[in-house]
């Protein structure tokens, strides 16, 4: 009996002594795995680049923010596209407001005002399924102006959100005008201001406004929703 005790007691004692190092090494292993996983995840998830927004982007942002025709209510400087491997977007500005008149008059009114702030009409086009969102359902006009640093800002505006029952020629209709402007990110090549287009002649040409031309006149290349 007395001989059983030394046999029976040391077993748990040995097991107890062994459990310490096992738990410790298991904990250490878990910690190493955790640290490794953290390092891997940190390495996989891109963080915002230090140069995502520079003084160049700030200057272009300020130019859009100070534009009295745009009078933008939504503004953002050029920045990194979240989660990407160094993909960037230029600064943007947008506005929404109401103007009374036919679609043609409203567009001309806005273009005239834009011209007083230094913008030049460079193109116009009809709605189309190939366009994203807003401009898929609106006649849009594209304007551009040179910024102080030699790059170009672009803006696209059009009548959006109209009641479909209101005709484009109804001069008493109050219409919602939406505009989006954009400037190049500092990492992108600068654009030149394209050749000017006579808006009245362009609108006469557009098939969606009764003209016998095509659906687009002048510079309508690029993503009008982004403004550039």
């Amino acid at each position: 009996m007395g001989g059983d005790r030394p046999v029976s007691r040391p077993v748990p004692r040995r097991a107890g002594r062994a459990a310490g190092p096992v738990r410790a090494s298991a904990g250490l292993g878990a910690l190493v795995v955790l640290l490794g996983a953290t390092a891997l995840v940190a390495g996989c998830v891109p963080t915002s680049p230090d140069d995502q927004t520079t003084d160049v982007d700030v200057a272009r942002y300020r130019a859009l923010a100070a534009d009295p025709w745009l009078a933008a209510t939504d503004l953002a400087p050029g920045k990194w596209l979240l989660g990407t491997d160094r993909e960037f977007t230029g600064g943007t500005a947008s506005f929404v407001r109401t103007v009374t008149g036919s679609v043609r008059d409203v567009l001309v009114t806005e273009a005239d005002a834009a011209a007083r702030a230094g913008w030049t009409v460079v193109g116009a086009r009809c709605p189309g399924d190939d366009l994203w969102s807003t401009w898929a359902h609106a006649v849009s006009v594209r304007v551009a102006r040179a910024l102080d640093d030699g790059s170009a800002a672009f803006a696209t505006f059009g009548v959006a959100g109209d009641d479909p029952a209101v005709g484009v020629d109804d001069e008493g209709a109050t219409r919602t005008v939406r505009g989006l402007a954009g400037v190049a990110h500092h990492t992108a090549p600068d654009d030149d201001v394209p050749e000017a287009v006579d808006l009245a002649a362009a609108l006469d040409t557009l098939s969606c406004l009764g003209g016998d031309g095509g659906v687009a006149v002048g510079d309508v290349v690029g993503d009008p929703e982004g403004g550039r």
Partner: protein
Amino acid sequence: MTAARRRGTTLPAASRIGAGLVGALVVSLLGGCGDDVGARDLADALSAQAWPGGEAELGVTPGGRTYPRPAVTRATPVTQAPWQAVADEVARAVDAGWVPVFAQCTGPRDSVRVDLVRPLEVGGRTTVAAATVATGLEWADLENGRDPSDDVVLSVQAVAPAPQDLDDDALLPAALRAVPDAVDASACLDGPPADDGRTWVGEPAALPPLGGPLPR
């Protein structure tokens, strides 16, 4: 005895010096804390203004070093003409100490927009808040399916700079770096604007509720 006297005189002196250093450190730390202005402080300062009233909120940011600015926002349908609705609201703002710095309008039934600014005292520092009063901006958010031509919706948005803007004012409108002189907005507010094209006076001062990223 000499050593004891020396100890008796030098140790209290060292203690006093140590206590003085600790006290100076604590005071400087507290002083530093006093100068720190947090987003909640700025939100509280904006909420405390008599106009536009309401609790300033901080939005959620999508990341990428963008940051929320405290903002009070409201949009209400009104029965007046756009110019009249904006004129009434701007008059209330001016009574509360706001200064109009930009106005833009077109015809008598069209959108009117006025930007205002005012100093904001926060934690011993002075910054400038911005507000935009406008019609025609928010109709889609009020009720889907309504004909926007039948609605006049008055939108008010007042925004205070974020703490990040206090450290670097690069993304603040020029009017927020110092309160400028008031502009004469009478062309848009004293009666129906002439239907002769879009007009404006001053420079826009709208401050988006989402700021950044700032240059590093």
